[in-house]
């Protein structure tokens, strides 16, 4: 039941802070990877190149779905911004369900931009159904489809290194984030900028996806402080022999 209490408190905080953020937008700290992402988004439209959004191979039916949903939220915003570009963005997924949602999310972005007729279903792709199969298929996109930036946000393991390496060989800017520690380490070494840990979930807020995204960052901060205080309190209680 403790988990339920945490969920209810988080839901209440998210709801209340979203209402508050609608009236007073928040000031966000600078994250170099997200600044580069924002700049890349504008540049790709201007110079007529594509963005490749790699959503990883996380299944939506298990705990790895969280980063995949964060990637989809970002994709929705990018699709809306780049839908009128000569070279629209491409999304790739390593899970079939995620691939379907990527297509649906791309189409939502086109609808929001009022250019539904420009939507091409094959811009949302499933490139493989195993992590390395996915990476092998997605490498091909960076190399052959006039891509200027490869944005990897989702569940990636070490196979992310192959994607980043392929991007680097084509002088394609790469930005990466993963929920898996091995994936994060590989992306840190291989990409132009990497997002570490929970920064993965901040992309929506930094791209201006709405008050709920900014509110969720504040909720994460509040919960993080509660976790820190609990850890310190527990350590102090143990030290003094209370527990």
């Amino acid at each position, binding site marked *: *039941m403790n*988990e*339920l209490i945490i*969920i209810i408190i*988080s*839901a209440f905080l998210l*709801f209340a802070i*979203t209402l508050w953020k609608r009236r007073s937008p928040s000031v966000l700290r600078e994250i170099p990877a997200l600044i580069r992402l924002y700049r890349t988004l504008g540049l790709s439209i201007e110079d007529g190149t594509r963005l490749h959004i790699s959503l990883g191979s996380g*299944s*939506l*039916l298990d*705990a790895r779905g*969280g*980063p995949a*949903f964060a990637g989809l*939220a970002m994709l*929705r915003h990018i699709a809306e911004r780049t839908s009128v570009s000569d070279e629209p963005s491409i999304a790739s997924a390593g*899970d*079939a*369900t995620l*691939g*379907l949602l990527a297509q*649906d999310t791309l*189409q939502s972005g086109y609808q*929001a931009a009022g250019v539904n007729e420009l939507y091409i*279903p*094959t811009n*949302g*792709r*499933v490139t*493989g*159904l*195993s992590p*390395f*199969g996915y990476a*092998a298929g997605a490498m091909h996109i960076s190399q*052959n489809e006039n891509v200027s930036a490869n944005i990897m946000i989702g569940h990636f393991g*070490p*196979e992310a*290194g*192959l994607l980043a*390496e392929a991007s680097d060989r084509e002088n394609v800017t790469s930005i990466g984030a993963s929920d898996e*520690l091995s994936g*994060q380490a590989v992306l*840190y*070494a*291989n990409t*132009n900028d990497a997002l570490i*840990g*929970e920064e*993965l*979930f901040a992309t*929506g807020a930094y791209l201006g996806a709405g008050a*709920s995204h900014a509110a*969720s960052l504040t*909720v*994460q901060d509040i*919960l*993080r402080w509660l*976790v820190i205080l609990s850890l310190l309190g527990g350590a102090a209680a143990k030290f003094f022999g209370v527990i």
Partner: protein
Amino acid sequence: MRVFTAVIAIAAGVLVLGGYFFPVLAAIQTLLLNWAIVLAGMAALVGIFNLVSVHTNKIRSQQKGSVYSAILVIALTATFIGGIILRPDHGTMAILMNGIIIPVEASLMGLLTVSLIYAAIRLLRRRADLMSVVFLVTAVLLILGSATLPFGNIPLLGSLVKPWITQILALGGARGILIGVALGTLTTGLRILFGADRPYGGN
């Protein structure tokens, strides 16, 4: 229609979540999860058709790298038909799996080792900051602490420095990162339950 899909998605999410806490909802939770598994299976088939469609278009328009697309489509079709006729547990299908797919994935892993070493060498050129130096020094210390060296182990590195880095510094950092990811996953899930994010084509 959009409101209808959102209501269905949110109701399904709330019922599945509720099933973890209220036994009365457990049966509905199981039913919904079983539906999700069936739909995911169908989605795999749709995903494969999507893959074929993308690569067939490439072959038709003779785009760069269309030879690889042709190889993919031929191999996929042959494996698919073979699997239907022979069944997945047939010896030939096992040879295809164990003799082609697994070695190819293993060789990609091997390729990754080389690419990671190369990336580590280039890291300082790409991002010459304190954290990059810390990253590289840590990696070198751990490799030296783990590897079998021709002149024997370096004193204290394997017995003191490596355990201290992996079991205290790295473990603490990893737990911090995983707590952050868990909190991010929680708020992302709640946004979807509230209908603020609709990855199912809602808005």
